[in-house]
């Protein structure tokens, strides 16, 4: 049944759109589609972005791993490398600070009427992504493949059952979030 649903391309486009509508709803009600909230996070005066992301992680993670252990979902983990993940991540972070939206929240910002998100953010991301596609062949061997990480996931690297990482991780995140609330951030 699941296989049939997953293979139905038209149905998948509809699912993508519906999941997107919910995603946009959640991003909007949390406030993270606003430039002020994202820049506040990067200036460390407003921790909304971190709260949203970390809560999504502690809810999403156990659900995905339970379904994975029952064999009904597959993990989709990306192979990273120093040349790709770290260098790309640092470039992304600079863009994050200068634009004040990310590729998901910029779409939400367009929906709420932010013109800088539409004519600056979306247009810029399209140009930047196009630029990457042009330099991709020359970057591939020389940069993107440099320093490939040996393992895909943290439990794999540590050689332990995933739950030995999931449970401490959830506790750690709750302590961090609780700490932020305690000091009033």
């Amino acid at each position, binding site marked *: 049944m699941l296989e049939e649903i*997953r293979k139905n391309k038209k149905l998948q*486009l509809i699912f*993508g759109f519906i*999941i*997107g*509508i*919910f995603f*946009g*709803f*959640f*991003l909007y*009600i*949390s406030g993270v589609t*606003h430039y*002020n909230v994202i820049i506040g996070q*990067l*200036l460390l005066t407003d921790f909304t972005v971190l709260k*949203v992301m970390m*809560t*999504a992680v*502690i*809810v999403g993670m156990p*659900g995905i791993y339970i*379904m994975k252990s029952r064999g009904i*979902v597959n993990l*989709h983990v*990306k*192979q*990273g490398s120093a040349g790709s*993940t770290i260098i*790309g*991540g640092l470039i*992304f*972070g600079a*863009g*994050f600070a*200068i*634009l*004040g939206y990310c*590729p*998901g929240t910029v779409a939400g*910002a*367009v*929906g*709420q009427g932010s013109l*800088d998100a539409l004519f600056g*953010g979306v*247009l*810029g*991301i*399209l*140009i*930047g992504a*196009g*630029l*990457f*596609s042009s330099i991709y062949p020359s970057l591939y061997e020389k940069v993107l493949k440099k320093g490939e990480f040996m393992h895909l*996931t*943290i*439990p794999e690297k540590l050689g332990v059952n995933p739950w030995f990482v999931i449970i401490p991780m959830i506790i750690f995140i709750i302590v961090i979030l609780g700490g932020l609330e305690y000091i009033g951030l």
Partner: protein
Amino acid sequence: MEWMPYLAGAGIGVLSWFAFLISDKPLGCSTAYANTTGMIERFFRGKKTEDKEYYRKIKLGIDWQWMLVLGIAAGAFLTAIITGGFALEWVPSAFGNKFGYDPTLRWIVALLGGILMGLGARWAGGCTSGHGISGTLQLAISGWIAVVAFFISGIAVSMLLYGVI
């Protein structure tokens, strides 16, 4: 205490279950932009665009993730309209109070930031959703390292821009 970020975050976590379960996909956004640029390029340059190595890899066309990003805009639009939060705005107040309310300046800055972001997202193989949420919740090493890099660089550059350091 403000509950909304936690409720919304939990909602996104549950949404990720559904994305994995019914679509066999993690939540992610940035490939959709590369895809769009490729489709625009294909419109002008024709079929040979599809031979570009990167476009061969991501496969051009309207796909699940493209619809997801469109859905984000639609979902935020509907919610903003219903709650009365919809407003056409060129310059967000945090930017305006610091650098002035000239739309041209904000437009140029946003465009530059967007270019870096589009480049960086594809370079790193993901964005705040693909790495920051989906990667981290799968305990992906690439996801956790990417999100740390996003924030180290983001915090440093925004503090430089706003003159905090």
